[in-house]
């Protein structure tokens, strides 16, 4: 287990370095940042002054090391637009995104996993058919449309929930419903197919032959093996829920990171964009690493145990 852990963490570290370099480089891909800051109508002298003031005239490697060095001490630079520390802006927004992402993720898991198991226990049974309808519609309906429809029906027509903002917990209801609705199909599908495969194995048959009751056969023997692919998918899904809610945050007017990233892009507030990209990519690295470690805990073959 220890050698597995150290290997896995080394890989994670390498990915972190690559990812941070990429998110740093992204800023320069979109063109000369100094011109972007000066604005399209700005004079050449202004751009030059900005270039010197922000240190854009230095070699890229130096700029990167400078940036990542400060980032490691918790300093992500100043927002060009607001002229306050980036960490402060992000700190104000991250709570909404985390709350929305984690709750949606939990709701999706709680619905998708039992439904996937039930569908696998009786393929083509009525639960399986209902699950299929949910999965297909979840993948076919665009999220902004579903979000708008939800607002119209539950917010405007029935007035059951607030139609925008997250000042009260009720404000989260519709966004959570819409977001989790998109996470459910894939989680359900992988649970179902994993369970169907595992239920057909000899070790499940052997477990039944031992006289174990069905609930133990499922929970101890089948589920433990079927969740391995689910864990990996769930990590990616959680990453998506935390990072990919730009549309939902916009539709529901929630001031989260996704919306901040979008606004900052429009304002050419590059340090903020950079910081958000860095944070979200590091988040993916952390999540996939955690998923691999969890899988190694569940499956002794992965951690090289005897």
């Amino acid at each position: 287990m220890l050698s597995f852990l150290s290997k896995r963490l080394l890989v994670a570290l390498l990915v972190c370095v690559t990812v941070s370099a990429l998110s740093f480089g992204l800023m320069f891909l979109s063109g000369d940042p100094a011109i972007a800051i000066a604005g399209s109508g700005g004079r050449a002298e202004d751009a030059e002054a900005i270039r010197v003031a922000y240190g854009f005239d230095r070699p890229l490697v130096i700029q990167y090391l400078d940036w990542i060095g400060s980032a490691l001490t918790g300093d992500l630079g100043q927002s060009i637009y607001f002229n306050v520390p980036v960490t402060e802006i992000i700190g104000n927004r991250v709570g909404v995104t985390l709350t929305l992402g984690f709750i949606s993720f939990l709701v999706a898991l709680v619905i998708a996993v039992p439904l996937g198991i039930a569908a696998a226990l009786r393929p083509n049974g009525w639960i399986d058919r209902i699950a299929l309808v949910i999965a297909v519609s979840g993948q076919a309906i665009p999220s902004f449309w579903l979000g708008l429809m939800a607002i119209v029906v539950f917010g405007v027509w029935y007035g059951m929930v607030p139609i925008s903002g997250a000042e009260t917990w009720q404000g989260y209801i519709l966004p959570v419903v819409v977001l989790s609705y998109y996470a459910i199909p894939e989680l359900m599908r992988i649970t179902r197919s994993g369970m169907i495969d595992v239920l057909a194995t000899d070790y499940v048959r052997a477990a039944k032959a031992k006289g174990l009751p069905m609930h133990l056969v499922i929970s101890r023997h089948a589920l433990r093996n079927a969740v391995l692919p689910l864990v990996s998918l769930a990590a990616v899904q959680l990453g998506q829920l935390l990072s990919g809610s730009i549309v939902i945050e916009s539709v529901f007017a929630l001031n989260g990171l996704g919306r901040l990233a979008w606004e900052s892009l429009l304002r050419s507030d590059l340090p903020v964009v950079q910081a958000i990209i860095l944070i979200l990519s590091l988040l993916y690295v952390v999540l996939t690493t955690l998923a691999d470690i969890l899988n190694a805990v569940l499956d002794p073959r992965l951690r090289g145990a005897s």
Partner: protein
Amino acid sequence: MTDKMLDIRNLKVALPTERGTLNAVRGVDLSIAKGETLCLVGESGCGKSLTATALMGLLPRYAKVTADRFEMAGQDLTAKTDAKLAKMRGRDVAMIFQDPTSALNPTLTIGRQLTEGVMRAEKLSRKEADARAIEMLDRVGIANPAARLTQYPHGFSGGQRQRIMIASALMGRPKLLIADEPTTALDVTIQAQILALLGELQADLGLSLLLITHDLGVVAAIATEVAVMYAGRIAERAPVKDLFRAPQHPYTQGLLAAIPVPGLTPRGSALPAIPGRVPGLIGTMTGCAFRDRCALAGAECSQDPVPRHSPAPGRFVECYKAAEVAA
């Protein structure tokens, strides 16, 4: 109730398929006396595994199983099969499978897998269950058994895993052990060891053994009784010596044709090929299922019912031409 460990009459298993109902097991009669080894032989696909799985009550829900008589380990299971069978699994009757590499759960320790059944069924403590697991592992020839309990299956060879599966099956001290081609997936030398072990355990523990195989060498080595299965029915059943000496069904004869001296057949020799194909078992069928491949077949062979001759107690053959074969 009889003194038999297993007594089934007219066992049928029907499976719905896209092309219609597959009558895979079409009226099987099997009986095993206490402490006896019955070998069930037949070509691949003739319904051996389905028969064994039906005895364990482990067929998929969509399978339709019926029997005129179903008695096992002193219990009459003819009516209310499922609930009673569930209580007997792992205790009165246990089963081992063909592929030991897939029959152990890769994510659980050997100890857990050996003990989980008896800890529930017999309310054994962890310590008592471990002690029995160590005893059983020792018995099946796993060295240093106490240390093995905390290990996972992937550290063991195929032969060791099959020994562990046997130990696992013996944990509940079953009276009847069903082994479905337990050596087919193993190396030839390992096959011999596992068979010797099964024979030994059978004698020591007074087990009744239902051994499924398509290896006549295995039959000669271990069986007391043999049932030859063809297309979902028992074509012939006889004590092993009688069967090898004087087979009475043309199919059995075909199987034995390649064996020069009964009992000396090397293990691992597959069933010799008989020209022709097994008939499809979708829908109903009349007459003898073997007639298309049978040199002796006549007009009567397509009639129902195929007569059953019983030349001696414990022996029967289903064939219109049995007298000609025997002559």
